């Protein structure tokens, strides 16, 4: 009884990548169009699947498909989505066509308005086929229900991203790409050890996630295996103090790749914490809650403060993301329904908000040829549309109410504050301290806006053209989603909430969803 939805979703982009790679030399335009078409097909399929999700069969993982892969080790090609995975698959599918359009000229050799070449011409086909391979990996990693398969996707994702940063990035690209790769591989290896350990200790001769839930009872074993998984995910997320690869990678990657890197790839870290760390090792997760929440709060405040001090737009955005990932991790480990639903929603919203901000910044950088904030000034006068989109994306970054990231940030903070999972008032303090980030967020975003968009128009900025039709098509859907989900988060939350409840049941949290509402209920 296997559903073909997810295998098809995985196959389409892979086939597309092969087709694009095999196109004859010089067929750049065709390569772009084919990539766009394939990614739109994937988006359409994903949306159809998402709308069928509520009525689909299956208790937890819907659209499940399981095939034997390495029978002697109990490895399966197992895919399926619950509400949490579904929204992240949708996020990936939405972002890829946008990124394809945004990167339309990235491999052609980027010139500024006055004709200076920023990045040289490179193979267009390779770039777009890498993009499609990456899309398949991203869908696969969220949909995998077999832990071994998850690990394979988790590591394989690095390959296309490594080449996208290393071959198509900015001046420091090889440093950034190697740093990214080494960090991820280090975490990945720890996780591999833990995956094998889990297989051996559980003794169930299978890597299927649903069968492994609750398989490990011994607390000490749980802690070791938990650590293996968690460190890998903390690097991916990234959590302070293993975050420094992200600003380099995001600043050097082309804007489109940066969107996928920060918007989707990093979510695998927080997704992994929620799915694997919590459910497989509930006791260890509870034992480590406080240290992890402390790290998360440090990430939130530290990321925000360092973001204020950045002089490079893309690095600044990367640091804001570190701050936001702190919120997600805090929400995941607050062990309350509101906080975890908020964290999951945050993963999606952050993808849209930071995606829009990276792309808008990318459009500015493509015009000016410099990521340095000091090289701008007064862009609003000459390019009001671009400035408007940049401002809205920035406001989403500072979680302005009415925009989608507010709902998730508010849920995370409120849920953490109200969570009684840890008994003591420590989570309360964490929530209050993290709320200070709302002030810092206003500083880092608005100060950047002031320096880039406001003030007298700088001489090189005067030549800026406003957004082209292609660029509007890139940004408009993201902004529409940001505003739409800011007022109507219900469709997403209706999908997320049951999955989060299931997670909490598996984690055996003492206070179910209602209890956290307190004495008043």
């Amino acid at each position, binding site marked *: 009884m296997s559903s073909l939805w997810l295998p098809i979703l995985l196959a389409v982009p892979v086939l597309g990548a092969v087709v694009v790679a095999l196109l004859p030399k010089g067929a750049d335009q065709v390569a772009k169009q084919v990539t766009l078409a394939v990614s739109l097909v994937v988006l359409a399929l994903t949306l159809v699947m998402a709308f069928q999700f509520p009525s689909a069969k299956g208790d937890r993982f819907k659209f499940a498909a399981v095939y034997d892969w390495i029978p002697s080790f109990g490895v399966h090609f197992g895919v399926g989505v619950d509400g949490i995975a579904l929204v992240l698959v949708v996020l990936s599918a939405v972002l890829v066509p946008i990124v394809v359009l945004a990167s339309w000229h990235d491999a052609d050799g980027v010139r500024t308005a006055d004709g200076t070449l920023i990045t040289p011409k490179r193979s267009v086909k390779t770039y777009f086929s890498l993009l499609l391979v990456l899309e398949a990996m991203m869908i696969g990693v969220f949909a995998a229900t077999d832990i071994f398969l998850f690990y394979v996707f988790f590591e394989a994702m690095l390959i296309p991203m490594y080449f996208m940063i290393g071959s198509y990035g900015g001046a420091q690209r090889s440093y950034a790409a190697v740093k990214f790769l*080494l960090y991820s591989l280090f975490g990945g290896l720890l996780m591999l050890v833990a995956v094998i350990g889990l297989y051996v200790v559980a003794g169930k001769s299978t890597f299927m996630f649903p069968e492994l839930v609750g398989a490990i009872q011994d607390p000490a074993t749980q802690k070791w295996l938990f650590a293996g998984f968690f460190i890998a995910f903390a690097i991916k997320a990234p959590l302070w*103090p293993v*975050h*420094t690869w992200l600003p380099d990678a995001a600043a050097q990657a082309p804007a489109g790749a940066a969107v996928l890197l920060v918007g989707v790839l990093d979510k695998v870290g927080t997704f992994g914490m929620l799915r694997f760390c919590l459910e497989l090792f509930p006791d260890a997760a509870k034992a480590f809650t406080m240290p992890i929440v402390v790290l998360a709060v440090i990430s939130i405040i*530290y990321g925000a*403060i*360092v973001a*204020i*001090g*950045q002089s490079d737009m893309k690095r600044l955005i990367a640091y804001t993301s570190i701050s936001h990932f702190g919120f997600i991790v805090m929400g995941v480990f607050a062990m309350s*329904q*509101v906080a975890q639903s908020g964290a999951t929603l945050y993963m999606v919203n952050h993808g849209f908000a930071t995606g829009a901000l990276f792309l808008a910044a990318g459009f500015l950088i493509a015009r000016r040829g410099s990521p340095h904030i000091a090289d701008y000034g007064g862009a*609003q*006068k000459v390019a*009001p*549309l671009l400035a*408007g989109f940049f401002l809205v994306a920035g*406001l989403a970054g500072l979680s*302005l*109410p*009415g925009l989608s990231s*507010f*709902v998730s940030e*508010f*849920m995370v*903070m*409120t849920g953490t*504050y*109200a969570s009684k999972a840890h008994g003591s008032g420590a989570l*309360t303090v964490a*929530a*209050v301290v993290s*709320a*200070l980030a*709302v*002030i810092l*967020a*206003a*500083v880092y975003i*608005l*100060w950047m*806006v*002031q320096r880039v*968009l*406001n*003030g007298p*128009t700088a001489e090189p900025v005067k030549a800026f053209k406003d957004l082209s039709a292609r660029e509007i098509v890139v940004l408009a859907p993201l902004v529409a989603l940001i505003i739409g989900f800011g*007022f*109507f*988060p*219900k469709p997403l*939350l*209706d999908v997320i*909430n049951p999955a989060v409840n299931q997670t909490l049941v598996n984690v055996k949290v003492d206070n179910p*969803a209602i209890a956290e*509402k*307190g*004495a*008043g*209920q």
Partner: protein
Amino acid sequence: MESPVEIVQHTAGGVIGVSWLMIAFPLLGAAILLILGRKTDRWGHLLGVAMSLASFVVAVLAFFELLGLSAEQRRQAVHLYEFIPGMADMGLLIDPLSISFALLITGVGSLIHIYSIGYMSHDPDRRRFFSYLNLFVAAMLLLVLADNYLGLFIGWEGVGLASYLLIGFWQFKPSAAVAAKKAFVVNRVGDFGLLVGMFIMWSATGTFAFAELSEKAGGLSQPMVTAIGLLLLLGACGKSAQLPLQSWLLDAMEGPTPVSALIHAATMVTAGVYLVVRSGAFFFPEGSPQALAVAIVGAATLLAGAIIGCAKDDIKKGLAGSTMSQIGYMMLGAGLGPAGYAFAIGHLITHGFFKADMFLGAGSVMHGMNDEVDMRKYGALRKYMPITFVTFMVGYLAIIGFPLLSGYFTKDGIIETAVEHNQVLGWLAVIGAGITGFYMSRMIFMTFFGEKRWAEDAHPHESPTVMTVPLIILSIGSIFLGGYLILSNRLMLWLAPAVGRPEELPQFHFASTPGLATLALVAVGAAYAWMKYGRAEVPAVQPRGSFLTTFARRDLYGDALNESLFMRPGQWLTRIAVFFDNRGIDGVVNGLAAGIGGTSGRLRRIQTGFARTYALSILIGAALLTGALLLVGNI
């Protein structure tokens, strides 16, 4: 002491059922103007005005529908949709308090929209201005109409955004851009308080809805209620520019004058007062620490604002100081519990009229004087701008509390109630009124009386009708509204279902001790102003002034304090953190990489290339292995 009545779920249709239209109209206007952009340049301002007026019409209809209901029925909750499942719904609360605000916002707002047609007629971005104004009206209405704190907070930040956009409307001026950012950031400090207050509410009661909260607030522990109250007060201080978060308001005058009138005088800055009055359940009982804190903040700010107002030569900043001061009065009133609520709201409404009147009057003066704001370069304008002069005079008389004008009734109500509850705070308010008499008279004398001190290219002229008509309407309100609302306690009885009222209705005394003292002090203040600025020559250049004058000119060193307490340490912290990140954390990472690289660089030196050396190491290795095997014993 009577409590507010219970909130009932609105069932029947009528205008109240579609009261969301009030928000939808201006929101639609803003969306159309922003999305269609330059295409709407020709008629954009008309659409903006139309949407604001439409909203006003809905508000008026809803008001009359509410009037038709019995007192117990006058709190109608209108459910809109499920916002965050399991957490909060989006809904509106139509009750006397919210509808009073809605009338003020849409009424004064529409007048200011109309005025702006004229004021902004030469600005190429007039359409954008109207889109922001519409956005503001929508957000402000959401703020006052929402039936829960989450909805209120969305409106709260929405008006903050509109304020940010409008202060920075002329963003190409660095000063405007900085002022806009400052306003937003300082407001966020207040929002932090509001947010944490909401965390506690949710944690303790599991709801954000006003209806449920007012029921459950009584069951909470006293420290918790105090904490919520103080945190809400922090939020109110941010939005209403009360001490210690006052510093942004004076800089906010960088925005176009209609913005100062609408947002930074009549409506948005009074949102803090609304929040305190709406959250009555958390400021109970009177004299509780949190209620006292509200009153103290109000009294302190009313003095601070008045002192700042005395020293400003910039007409808008003078008015801004006065706004701070008047909101201080409202806060003082709001801190006195149900006895003061009606006066606080009454003063809020009349202030909305007379202060908007004066701001628009100042705008009219600036319009005629090439956007000059320095009052030392005005003088003798009464002959050249008669309508502006008369309307401004009305506003002036209202604000200083000239008997029988609007401000007289509402301010006097606050002062008398304050003296009854707390002698110290009450008499501070009396002193504040005296200072008000001085600085407002100073403004009048410097602007409209005395000699001409104009710049050479100034050709003052009366503003067009589209600007003077709103002035006239506002000044009519400034004359009669106060008496209408306060005499025979009309406003108190009207608001009672929403905010409660004291058991015994207060009687308005025309000759009470504090009232007479106030009048006497105001007269002294005005006379002193006449001596210094009316009769005497006003120097064209600001004289050096005493220590106290400098203190007031520098906004009581508020900015200096913020700078040395927060900005400079913050900058240091940022620098240290960036340095730590680059050299510390990344240093460790890069150091590790360099260390491994260096070690391998040394290790490879062992590979000398001499085959015999390798042979020797092989031999030694083999010997060691053999030896080890022998040591271990039989294989």
